[in-house]
């Protein structure tokens, strides 16, 4: 085995180990997809209080996320510009993009997501949807 082949083998193994390690540490992003529910003040239940459970966090161009509870079926229409749209659906505990006019339709093809940390991205429209867990 010559030196270049040996180096390549070593690098391939090192990179695999590094990626496996990074995956183990971050849990593929699932570990950080968690939000602590804000405590209700003076025992009063605020109308905007977040119940514990799984939510779809819908964000467009890094704006304030819209949290949709996965246990409530919903359909929302999002407009990036006047023409650009995505239809985000929550159904049976899953979230998916039902339709869009982004061209490649990667967001629609990605299908339904239901596990914490899973995401759907529509890059042409700057849309990012991911499953987040709110804990009590």
């Amino acid at each position, binding site marked *: 085995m010559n030196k*270049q082949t040996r180096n*390549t083998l070593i690098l391939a193994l090192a990179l695999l180990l590094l990626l496996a390690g990074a995956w183990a540490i971050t849990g593929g992003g699932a570990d950080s997809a968690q939000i602590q529910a804000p405590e209700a003040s003076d025992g009063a239940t605020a109308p905007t209080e977040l119940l514990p459970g799984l939510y779809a966090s819908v*964000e467009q*161009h*890094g704006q304030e996320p819209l949290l949709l509870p996965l246990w409530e079926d919903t359909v929302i229409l999002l407009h990036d510009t006047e023409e650009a749209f995505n239809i985000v659906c929550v159904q049976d505990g899953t979230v998916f993009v039902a339709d869009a006019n982004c*061209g490649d339709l990667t967001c629609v*093809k990605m299908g339904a997501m239901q596990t914490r940390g899973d995401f759907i*991205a529509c*890059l042409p429209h700057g849309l*990012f949807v991911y499953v987040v867990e709110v804990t009590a």
Partner: protein
Amino acid sequence: MSTKKTVHLGLLTALAMILSYVESLIPVFTTVPGMKLGLPNLAVVTVLYLYSWKEALGVSAVRILGVGILFGNFFSLAFSLAGGLFSLLVMTLVKKTKLLNCTGVSMVGGIAHNAGQIAIATVLVENARIAYYFIPLAVTGLAAGILVGLLSGLMVKRLQKIAPRL
């Protein structure tokens, strides 16, 4: 540029474009965004080894522009360009170090391609969370890069005999 060289580069560009199309027909790689075999890179790596980074840049750019105009849109074109150019830059630098063989260079190129695309994706959705996706993507990029590198190595070996440096 000699006629012979023009013909060779033209053929390899055509090969890269056909491989782009073939790749787009494999269903699993269209539903998992960014996950690709990187077959067109076979032609790019081969040109990088037979000629230089300049010719590889030409083949890669013509391939991306051609495929983008034929089958894609402005967005997919810009996205491919980011991955393709960053990958070629990294491969050229790694090749210059002479530390890795053809397979290694292609492997690093595969990961660089994913890195370039994730970087663009992060900018577009303005959310750094998408970077987590780099990990599974890089594993496939690494595997695909090795496969493409092995094949390119074989191609370079054979083509060098009939197409000495022009």
